């Protein structure tokens, strides 16, 4: 029974990893770029949400907000921050016909943004973890002895909706075709009238939305936020993405769930100290046995959406 309970919990944890892993894989799939600001965007939504729920807007512009409103604004801040990163790092520094060494420029500058934003939040709010005033813990369903918290169930539903929506967007919509065209062949996309400077911000907007949403779900389900909350989630999401296959949305979904499951089962059987070994061991094993990941292709980072 306890094992089934752990399985349910792992799906909940995994759904947070899934959302962040999808954000990573989207940027890699379309732009061939590992966006290191993703963990910060995740953290920003949680911390801004907490600050708004705890204090309200700065300079006394408003009193403390209700938690759903606070999280909504937290997600908006994550989206805006992501667009700012696009404008200031990716677009500014992007070299048009870059080789692999030039890809290091947006990568390193996004790492810079990660550190600057995280430390700005630390300066503003301190390094301590804060209790997030989410929905009451009593909202629980008992299904044959297995406890499922209703906020977790709602979160899972939201994650599924977002991933299905994103898949639809990429597969069926005009903007999705434009994104895939740029992912495969930017030159050919350009001569057909796809404007890179209009399409690329869409990727960053979706990244901000996914990370913000994941941060909000994390705050609600685990009741705690901190300036460091993005670090562990970010690295586990990268592991999930690699296991699933770079650039594949459904690979990121499966990989995120596998990492969540591995984590919970390791805790259950071997204790919390072994989690990192198990997750990263899984990653290394994947790289040895199936380097392209479960759903990935051999050509890493090119047109697989």
């Amino acid at each position, binding site marked *: 029974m306890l094992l089934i309970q752990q399985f349910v919990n792992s799906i909940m944890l995994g759904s947070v990893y899934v959302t962040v892993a999808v954000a990573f894989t989207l940027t890699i799939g379309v732009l061939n770029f590992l966006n290191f600001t993703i963990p910060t965007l995740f953290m920003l939504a949680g911390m801004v949400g907490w600050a708004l729920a705890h204090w309200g807007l700065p300079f006394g512009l408003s009193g403390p907000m209700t938690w759903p409103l606070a999280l909504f604004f937290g997600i908006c801040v994550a989206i805006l921050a992501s667009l700012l990163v696009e404008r200031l790092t990716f677009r500014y520094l992007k070299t048009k016909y870059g080789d692999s060494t030039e890809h290091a420029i947006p990568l390193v500058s996004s790492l810079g943004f990660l550190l600057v934003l995280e430390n700005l939040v630390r300066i503003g709010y301190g390094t301590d973890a804060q209790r997030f005033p989410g929905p009451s813990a009593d909202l629980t369903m008992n299904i044959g002895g297995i406890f499922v918290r209703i906020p977790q169930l709602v979160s899972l539903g939201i994650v599924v909706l977002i991933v299905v929506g994103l898949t639809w967007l990429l597969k069926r919509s005009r903007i999705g075709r434009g994104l895939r065209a740029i992912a495969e062949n930017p*030159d050919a996309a350009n*001569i057909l009238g796809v404007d890179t400077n209009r399409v690329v911000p869409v990727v960053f907007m979706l990244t901000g939305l996914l990370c913000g949403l994941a941060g909000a779900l994390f705050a609600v389900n685990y009741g705690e936020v901190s300036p460091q909350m993005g670090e562990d989630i970010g690295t586990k999401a990268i592991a999930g993405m690699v296991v699933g296959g770079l650039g594949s949305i459904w690979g990121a979904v499966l990989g995120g769930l596998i990492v969540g499951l591995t984590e919970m089962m390791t805790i259950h059987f071997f204790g919390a100290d072994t989690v990192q070994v198990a997750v990263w061991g899984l990653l290394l094993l994947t790289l040895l046995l199936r380097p392209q990941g479960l759903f990935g292709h051999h050509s890493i980072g090119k047109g697989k959406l």
Partner: protein
Amino acid sequence: MLLEVSGLDVRYGRTHAVKNATISVGEGEIVTVLGANGAGKTSLLRALQGAVRPASGRIVFDGKDLTGASPSARVRAGMMLVPEGRQIFVSMTVHENLQMGVYLRSDRDAARDIEAIYDRFPNLAERRDMKASVLSGGEQQMLAIGRALVGRPRLMMLDEPSLGLSPLFVSRLFDLIVELNQSGIGILLVEQNTTMALEVAARGYVLELGSIVLEDTAESLARNPTLTEAYLGGHQNSPSHAAGENA
């Protein structure tokens, strides 16, 4: 004139790829640009489509100055490039490739224009939901032309369209170019297959090391005995030569 290019210079760093080029294409005219490997033909077309910014010169299309315009503005104005090596999206289906051709169109006729491509090329219709990577070289060229055609261009620029095609497909391709031209589309054709290009074109330019060294009617160019020897590397019609143009 549909397209008027004057004094166009294209530079890549220290390389002066196109020097002071002045060319024009009339409404509904077929004009060809000939030249050996590395003569600057592809650079010229890329500058015309806005993929590279010219160092100097003017590009006027349909009376509008498009010298500094974005590629999307040029597509909207009616210029479409069928790039060298076809550049179809192999990770997409045939149908999605054609949809990319109407990327900037929001009118209801776009879907009908795609159906018209299927009527014209039944091979593509049969494979509409397959990945474009399964197409043969000739079919890929049909797809690349179809993709440009659904954008309803007034000027279609083709970069080495016969490259790597079987002789049968080459003659089908040139028939198609004539057919498109008869429907009112101006054609700017860059080719190494001089004989075929001069057969369908009304006028031609010869590029050598980035400069236009000869400009005449296609008839006179075809009769010019020194053309092949002097400017085009002597044996450009042998199939073995028709590989790897890149400049």
